[in-house]
């Protein structure tokens, strides 16, 4: 923990000259550790001279910030209108069936996390899916299986 706390302090220090640095700091922490540990909230509050409640409030407001570690492959299925027009709801159902969990859940073995997302900016090649930050277009069940299998190889 203390080593991690050092890392957190170093991240804060790297943003010293920035205006309103909390979001960039939280992003860096999550990029480094994969999540934002509750225990670092007091460290951040002290370093940035704000209340713990403020830091906590920011972390919970934004859906990107996770409070639990996760090694899972994140599969985000777009549910916004353009993707719905080409069967996003069906793709959601297929995906949930493939992994046996609902959107917002992780498979019991911790390997895959399913999430909903509203628009990935790929609305002319719908339905769209993002897997670990990479975008895929014209998605259907068969292509999803293929993409995930390829990902597992490399």
């Amino acid at each position, binding site marked *: 923990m203390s080593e991690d706390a050092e890392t957190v302090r170093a991240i804060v220090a790297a943003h010293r000259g920035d*205006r309103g640095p909390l979001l*960039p700091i939280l992003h860096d922490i999550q990029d480094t550790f994969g999540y934002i540990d509750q225990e670092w909230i007091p460290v951040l509050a002290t370093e940035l001279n704000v209340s713990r409640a403020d830091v906590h409030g920011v972390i919970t407001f*934004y859906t*990107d910030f996770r409070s639990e570690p996760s090694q899972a492959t994140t599969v985000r299925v777009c549910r916004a209108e353009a993707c719905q027009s080409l069967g996003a709801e069906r793709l959601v159902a297929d995906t949930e069936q493939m992994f046996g969990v609902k959107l917002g859940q992780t498979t019991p073995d911790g390997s895959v996390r399913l999430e909903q997302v*509203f628009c990935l*900016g*790929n609305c002319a*090649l*719908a339905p769209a899916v993002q897997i670990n930050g990479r975008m895929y277009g014209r998605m259907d069940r068969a292509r999803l299986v293929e993409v995930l299998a390829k990902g597992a190889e490399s």
Partner: protein
Amino acid sequence: MITVYVPRDSAAVSVGADEVAAALEQAAGERIRLVRNGSRGMLWLEPLIEVATERGRIGYGPVSPHQVQGLIDAGMLDGADHELCLGVVDELPWMRDQQRLCFARVGVTDPLSVVDYEAHGGLTGLRQALAREPADVVAEMTESGLRGRGGAGFPAGVKWQTVLDTPGETKFVCCNADEGDSGTFADRMLMEGDPFCLIEGMTIAAHAVGASEGYIYVRSEYPDAVATLRRAIDIAYEHGWLGENVLGSGLRFDLFVRVGAGAYICGEETSMLESLEGKRGMVRSKPPIPAITGLFGKPTIVNNVLTLASVPRILADGGAAYSELGIERSRGTQVFQLAGNIARGGVFETAFGITLDELINGYGGGTRSGRPVRAVQVGGPLGSYVPVSQFDLPTDYEAFAAAEAMLGHGGIVVFDDTTDMSKMARFAMEFCAEESCGKCTPCRVGSVRGVEVIDRITGGEDPDGNLAVLNDLCELMTDGSLCAMGGLTPNPVRSALTHFPEDFTVNHREAK
């Protein structure tokens, strides 16, 4: 060496452009110079390969990686014919008929090449601007008639004038690159395909109003745009296009990229400012307006990506030239985005005034499913559903408003006749409930109630009574919401009800 182009745009990559580029390198690496350009915006043709020839750039698409060797064997590198050959890309009707001002370089150049940028007109606008007084630059913007491309259509010149006129040591230019609306992707394509254009536009804005710092707030769903912008900003500093002495003019302008964290509401400008300050993205009451009391309480320009990316050309050619395009009070060009169930989806930039029919059934080729179009949603999730009977509407802010619709940012999402419009109305409420910042009750609670009431109506439970409840709810949300999230969510709901009432009755639903 033959120059070959394969887009790096994330939409092109989403259907295999990286694999096509790798196959090309492998098959002909030593014969070609491979450029990873932005996308031309004909997204149904991605991945699109272009080969530079004496006749112009010859296109091939959509190409699968396994077809690359065959294309090379057939003489693609000499521009030879093939079943995937599209001819000279600039001569395709889709490209030829556009008036690309904002998107002039997107898909044409290497997005990170300063040589390409200047060779294709880059920096002309900034040089013009720096040679003139700030007030003259603002006057040029006002004359152009440019209205904000983020949705609300507020005149950019008026906003800039307010920031210029507000005294302050520190002022900011903020670019709204949150692009959360379904049906919009042009901001992303510009940031990935011509990032210097946005940088140039923001720098002109800084000079015009006396700002020394700028922020681009990009949504976290766009990692490629973030990476491209950050590299472009580094390159711009190296070349003296940013920093303490921009192009030797004495102007100091520093530019930063900030990444959102998955909150749609942060696209609302005051919520974005809160987020930039490191806070929860709660919407602020207006007044005060951001132009006077903006980021950290300082005078601030907040403009959309495409608003700012339109600026260099306006300064290069003059505001009068820009305002010659368009109709009524909608001047210049709009970057239309054809999305959803459409045969030919992508970006089509042209002067305001073109009709929905020309865009959707003409250039867009109707639905991808081949079935009749039922409705289109224009202007994002807060925009109305427009029925086919209104497809002769000219794309003009006021004409749309008069038809109880919203042109907004020009994103158009197409739905075919299998769409249940009551589901789309329900989704609008669900989305509002999901993304509300929670500050006002009509938005936060009303949207949750809205979902329940629509379920009762479509479930056949006292339909007339519940329709009245839904109407009251819509009225309450319209009147009692602080921002357009709660205030405009009734648009898609009411338009679906008005134009497709049959979708809300039980009989109809059972027949389906």
